[in-house]
């Protein structure tokens, strides 16, 4: 059961990496968080699961969609690397994380290794989204995906971090998203567009 | 103590002697050898005229200069005490130069500038010659070289040709005289006497300490006169070459005395 969920999370990560429209990205994130919710629930961490549901499945995607409607930009995700290549890169990242997970836990059980590998892969793909997409909103989503990966790692490997830490992390994520959202709005107002590459002039 | 009084009394005589000799060699009669005494007496009798720009330094300088120069007499006995003597002369010069600047005239300033310039470079020559004397007195070559270096330095310090002309009346060519330009009366007398005492002290050092024979003093005075006659006054910046030559001689004298000490 967990394996299926993990595979689902991985597949959604691929979907996000090769998504062509922003609403697709946000939807992918929503579904991935949903799967994460189910997984955490299965692990027995009910409180944390509830928070995941609240924040990552309901509130944050709602907030992101709202921004999308407000700034009325072109729904195209600005590509530095085209979708096909991105997908290949995602696959390569998955391969690397498998090798890394295997070296890390050379004598462990397979389920754990797969969980580790998936979480590293998700983290890597979140980073990929941040680096190789031009729009500011995609960077927020990339950050959230990385956070998903970390969360996955924490809940499968260690049986969850202490509650306080989880609370703090969630608070951090929520607040960062709000702030980044505001920034995106401002960037849009200033530059008529959210192309982050236009910020190149801000250097010493 | 007696030495002290004798030196002060005889200093003008030496000066007069040199002047008379120079003139005789120029086939003229020249003034009497006691002329400096008559001059001093005349100055002492006259009133002083002091510039309104000057301060108390101008008034006190003649006494300071004379005191320092006269005190130097007590330090001519052995080579070691010559170091203090050089410092005392520097004391006298310091105040004389200040007095030259005090009157707010260009000539005084010029004389002060030139005097400091020449004397700054003469000091190492003096110290090196003193060092040579102090290190060893039994090496003939070292004594001769030190004597020559000291002689050249003495010519510079006592404002003789080829460094400075005591007989000039053109302010632009003066070095020592320019600083005395504003002085008159008693102060001028004291300053002139001080200059003559300094001259005598230098001659005494060369004759007495190097050759250990004070009777050579008139010989050196004659030498001074001959040098004054035969050379012309140098341009100020050529004096540097002159001092460099004296310096080289002094260095060689030190080397010779070191080597002499080893041999």
């Amino acid at each position, binding site marked *: 059961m967990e394996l299926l969920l993990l595979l689902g999370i991985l597949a959604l990560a691929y979907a996000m990496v090769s998504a062509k429209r922003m609403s697709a990205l946000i939807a992918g994130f929503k579904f991935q968080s949903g799967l994460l919710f189910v997984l955490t629930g299965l692990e027995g961490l009910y409180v944390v699961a509830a928070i995941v549901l609240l924040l990552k499945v309901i509130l944050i995607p709602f907030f992101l969609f709202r921004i999308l409607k407000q700034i009325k930009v072109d729904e195209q995700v600005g590509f530095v690397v085209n979708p096909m290549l991105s997908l290949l890169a995602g696959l390569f990242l998955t391969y690397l994380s498998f090798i*890394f997970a295997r*070296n*890390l836990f050379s004598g462990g059980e397979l389920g754990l290794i797969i969980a580790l590998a998936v979480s590293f892969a998700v983290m890597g793909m979140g980073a990929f989204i*941040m*680096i190789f997409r*031009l729009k500011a909103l995609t960077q927020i989503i990339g950050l959230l995906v990385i956070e998903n990966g970390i969360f996955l790692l924490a809940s499968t490997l260690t049986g969850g971090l202490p509650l306080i830490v989880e609370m703090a992390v969630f608070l951090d994520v929520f607040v960062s998203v709000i702030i980044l959202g505001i920034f995106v709005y401002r960037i849009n107002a200033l530059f008529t567009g959210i192309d*982050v*590459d236009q*910020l190149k002039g801000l*250097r*010493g | 103590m007696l030495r002290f009084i004798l030196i002060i009394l005889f200093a003008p005589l030496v000066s007069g002697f040199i002047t008379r000799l120079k003139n005789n060699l120029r086939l003229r009669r020249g003034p009497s050898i006691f002329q400096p005494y008559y001059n001093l007496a005349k100055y002492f*009798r006259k009133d*002083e*005229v*002091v*510039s309104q*720009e000057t*301060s*108390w*330094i101008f008034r006190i300088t003649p*006494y*300071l200069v*004379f*005191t*320092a120069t006269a005190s130097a007499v007590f330090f001519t006995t052995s080579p*070691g*005490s010559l*170091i*203090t003597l050089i*410092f*005392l002369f*520097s*004391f006298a010069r*310091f105040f004389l130069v*200040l007095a030259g*600047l*005090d*009157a*707010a*005239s*260009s000539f005084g*300033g*010029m004389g*002060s*500038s030139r005097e400091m*310039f020449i*004397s*700054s*470079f*003469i*000091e*190492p020559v003096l110290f*090196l010659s003193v*060092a040579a004397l*102090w*290190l060893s007195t039994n090496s003939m070559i070292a004594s001769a070289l030190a004597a020559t270096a000291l002689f050249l330095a003495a010519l510079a310090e006592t404002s003789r040709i080829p460094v400075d002309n005591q007989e000039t009346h053109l302010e632009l060519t003066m070095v020592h005289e320019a600083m005395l330009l504003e002085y008159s009366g*008693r102060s001028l007398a*004291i300053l002139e006497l001080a200059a003559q005492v300094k001259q005598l002290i230098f001659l005494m050092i060369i004759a007495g300490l190097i050759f250990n024979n004070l009777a050579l003093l008139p010989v050196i005075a004659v030498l001074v006169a001959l040098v004054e006659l035969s050379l012309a006054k140098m341009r100020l910046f050529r004096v540097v070459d002159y001092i460099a030559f004296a310096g080289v001689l002094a260095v060689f004298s*030190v080397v010779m005395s*070191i080597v002499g000490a080893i041999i």
Partner: protein
Amino acid sequence: MGWFLFDPLSLFFIVLILLISFPAFIYSLGYLKGHHTRFKNILTQLAMAAFVLSMILVVSVRQVFVFLIMWELMSLLSYFLILSDKDSPKSVEAGTIYLVMTHAGTAFLIMAFFLMYKVTGSFDFLVIKQALAGLPGHTKDMLFILLLIGFGTKAGIVPLHIWLPYAHPAAPSHISCLMSGVMIKTAIYGLLRFVFFMLGINALWWGGLVLGLAVVTCLVGVIYALIEQDIKTLLAYSSVENIGIILLGVGASMFLVKAGLPVLAVLALSAALYHLINHAVFKGLLFLGAGSIYRATGTRNIEKLGGLIKTMPWTALFFLIGAMAISALPPLNGFVSEWLTLVALFGGVLGLSSGFLKLFFCFCAAALALTGGLAAACFVKAFGIACLAKPRSQQAAAAKEVHWTMNFGAGFLALLTIALGLGAVWVFKLLAKIAGYTTGLDASAMNFSPGLFTLQPVGNISLSPVWLALLLLVIMGVVFILLNLVLGRSKVTTVPTWDCGYYKLTARNEYTATGFSKPFRLVLSFFLLPYQRSEKIKESFYHVKSFVYETNTKQVFNEYLYAPLVNFTFNLGRLAKNIQQGSVHIYLSYIFVALFLLLIFMGRF
């Protein structure tokens, strides 16, 4: 764990610090009055008190780490004090140069201290001293070089001296007095403590190197002082020169310790210590005087001063005493310490065996004589042009005597100058003991003064400052009285200066400071590299309306040594700037690439 070390060496320096801080503090009461808000004045005074405290702690702590902290504190506090008189962008530039240079020096000190810790395993001075005794020669050599560079930057050894002419003039005058009089001496303390006391002299070339550097420092300092027209910059360069003279004594002592001539070594070090305290006193005095002049006239340029001896008699008198002391005029303290250093060098000439070494010491003595002569020329110019003759500007003509606290501070130091000169014998006895303790030689049997009033350092050379002073006074008194008795009081008429028939001489007919030092500028042009620019503004072909003449000298060390270094560093920075592309994506990729590489390097992949 002992925190403090109150041995003779540190007590000497503590006395020195307190001796100079007291008049500087009194002076500052008058100096700061009315020029800043009351709050800022109190803040500055507190900073100064902290500065003095930090210096006292520097010379008395026993742990290397605490020493370093106090050293840094001293540098930082002085930096803030320099900037407290922030009237121009020059102060900021001065502060920056000072900060950079002092930290460069501290970097070398840190290197030396770490090396010391590595080889001895302790931070305590006394423990290190024991442990350093058995170390191999090249470790000690390395330590010596690092310490020399580190302390040399603070002391002002050429070519590490460039911060001095910027920092000392920019600071308020009582701080300049403290910096020039005391702070650069703490660097000499560092050298004495770490090299003499702890390391022990290992090789002859140490002393030779210090002597060579000292000669260069002397000459460079005095040459630049000669051509300087800003009175405080002139004093700063003169401090460089005097540090050179102190180092002549220190270097000679290092050399003589290793050469096995203990009496002469103690003599040389005592002469250096004596010049150290003398310089602190008369340089402090000169800076306080310069500060009074600046307060009264608003300018530091001596070309615009003049006639101050009539409008500010006390300030001028104290400045004169300082100038006399620094030019080594008998019987003041500068004369005694320069005399002693000369005699120590001559003693070295006599005592050393190799002919080449004798010549080297002789050459050092000649260099000392030359700097003495040039320094006298420099201060004759400074005092003569600033204080004598006619005022050269409105500000100078309008000068009034300063607040009594400022003159009190200066007067205290002037009295101290005279006292240190006359009391030379007793001071020297104390210093010989301190020097003996520092070099580790037994100085109890060395007697440098046969009588109560005479110093007889070497052979048959002797000096008695008290008798000399008495002699001068007696002769002067006798002459004066004699003349007045025999000839009656002289009748003096006051008239204008002889003016060759052009009536109405103005201040423009006086000699200028630039003119006074022009012969030196010409003769030393191979080093000073002067350049001049002249421009004729003509109304017609034959009629020149005005003429502009500008002459300047190149700062050799700044242009040929430091400017290339600074340019090189900036170019490196420009190259490194290319990393900052401005694109968020590239920055993000930097992060992840770095993470990735870290994982690989940690062997975890």
